[in-house]
């Protein structure tokens, strides 16, 4: 362990940062796209079902294959990796947000409408806050997926902790494999913990 750190310490920091960078950007993109899209889909429930099925299909493509498919479109490096991981994050967030928004008690919606809320207020003041627990569950799930799968991004030259694992595999060096894997696990657990703290903050009390 000490030997590993002495040899790869600096590298480990750089690779971990790359991992965080790729995962954060793709997850943020996923949130920025999926939540407004779900709100928009509320208006067109028939099309919503189709869109959600499409994102589910995207989810079934093996991660490695999806990353490989990015190469002819966006070349190698971080960009294709981020795009691929973004596509993966879409499904859990989109589906959870849509389900959360549509499952708000109809009595509450009716009452809010009857008291004179506009359509936008209904979304921002009623539907979104009440759907927050389900939305957050989707985001946490997506975050863990993305952090784990960002390891594969190294395959298309995006860097990250995957570099250690792939080198370890080709050089038969278990310490390199472990050196890549353990930080990924730690990162995933840490992210989940941080998101659970965030969740407590933004989920309204009284629910």
């Amino acid at each position, binding site marked *: 362990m000490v030997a590993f750190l002495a040899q790869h310490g600096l590298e480990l920091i750089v690779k971990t940062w790359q991992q965080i960078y790729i995962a954060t950007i793709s997850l943020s993109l996923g949130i920025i796209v999926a939540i407004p899209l779900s709100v928009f889909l509320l208006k067109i429930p028939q099309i919503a079902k189709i869109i959600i099925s499409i994102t589910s299909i995207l989810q079934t493509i093996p991660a490695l294959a999806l990353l490989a498919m990015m190469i002819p479109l966006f070349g190698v490096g971080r960009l294709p990796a981020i795009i691929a991981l973004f596509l993966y994050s879409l499904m859990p967030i989109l589906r959870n947000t849509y389900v959360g928004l549509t499952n708000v008690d109809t009595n509450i919606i009716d*009452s809010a409408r*009857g008291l004179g809320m506009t359509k936008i207020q209904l979304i921002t003041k009623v539907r979104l806050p009440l759907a927050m627990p389900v939305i957050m569950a989707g985001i946490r799930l997506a975050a863990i997926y993305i952090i784990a799968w960002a390891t594969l991004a190294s395959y298309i030259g995006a860097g990250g902790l995957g570099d250690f694992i792939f080198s370890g595999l080709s050089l038969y060096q278990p310490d390199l494999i472990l050196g890549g894997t353990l930080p990924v696990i730690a990162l995933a657990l840490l992210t989940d913990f941080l998101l659970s703290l965030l969740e407590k903050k933004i989920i*309204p009390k009284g629910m």
Partner: protein
Amino acid sequence: MVQNIPMVEFKNVTKLYPKMSKPAVDNINFKINKGEFCCLIGTSGSGKTTLMRMINQMNSVTKGKVLIKGKNVKEFNPVFLRRHIGYVIQSNGLMPHMTIRQNIALVPKLLKWPKKKIAVAVNKLIELAQLPKSYLDRYPNELSGGQQQRVGVIRALAANQNLILMDEPFGALDPITRESLQTLVKNLQSKLGKTIVFVTHDMDEALKLATKIVVLHGGHLIQVGSPDEILHYPKNKFVENLIGEKRLSEAKYETVKVKNVMLTDPVKINQTASLTTALAMMKEHRVDTLLVVDLENHFKGYISINELQKKYNQANKISEILLTKIPVLRPDEYLRDNFSRILSRAGQYIPVVDDNERLVGIVTRSSLVNVIYEKIWGDKTALIKKSEKEVK
């Protein structure tokens, strides 16, 4: 508090839902005056909720017009309209993610009232709801169902709305809590002079709260009237069923009039008759008093055997021993209003006199006993049938 200014008016209102052959509400016409407590009552599917929701445009009107203070609701912006009409629904109407304070302040906030004005209003309203101020910072799920609905009711008053719609607001509450909330709403309504449109399927509730009851069935308007009118003159079998047999028979006794129970051939004597005749008549009928009338049957008073015996030798005419201090009843008076008067006459009867002061009958204590007997034992015919069965 009821004024003759129409607050809400339905004119030939019809509501058709797509893919439905029958209209949900069919050609409805009636008015709700300012300050009135109007209950819309009917079974499920009668269109009562649909009708109420047309007032604040939660449901659109297919044909006809709904007017608020003479103005068609379609001319209002729906959001504006709803912010100025209170709205209470059966349950879960409170926003679970907002504190009680935020819930009460919801509409004033939407109307962009200044913060100070909202704070004053909230503190006043929580008192009206008879809840402690400490509840303001709690969340709805920390309150009982009854307390939540108290908040629901006052929230509908928060922005000084003069018209309040309530859709079976107490349907999900236990009877005791319901009763206390009914009292709260009734008091608030009469104290603040609000106009309330109240949907219910519970006739007890409607009779207790309403000043006007609108009976609906299958989208048609069956009857409109005050609780008394509905109770005493139900228009058809459906209304009778809605009221229920028990309440109907109770109502029947409430409306027994003097003329229904009076005896129509009292022993009476003409004022010109001689005292001898009077004495003979008393003996013949075994009575100790005689009612005195003139030739046209106008009631004059009465004579008693005591007076007659005392003055038999001095007096010649009935008018000399005539006693006039006696209460009288009118044939159209309700028996229920005169129970104590009849009972206080001890063994005596009370003469019944019509509007032309003519003697038409008497009421005795036994007349009351008959009514009470009927109420306790039910219809006489039922009693006879029962005894016939026992004989068999």
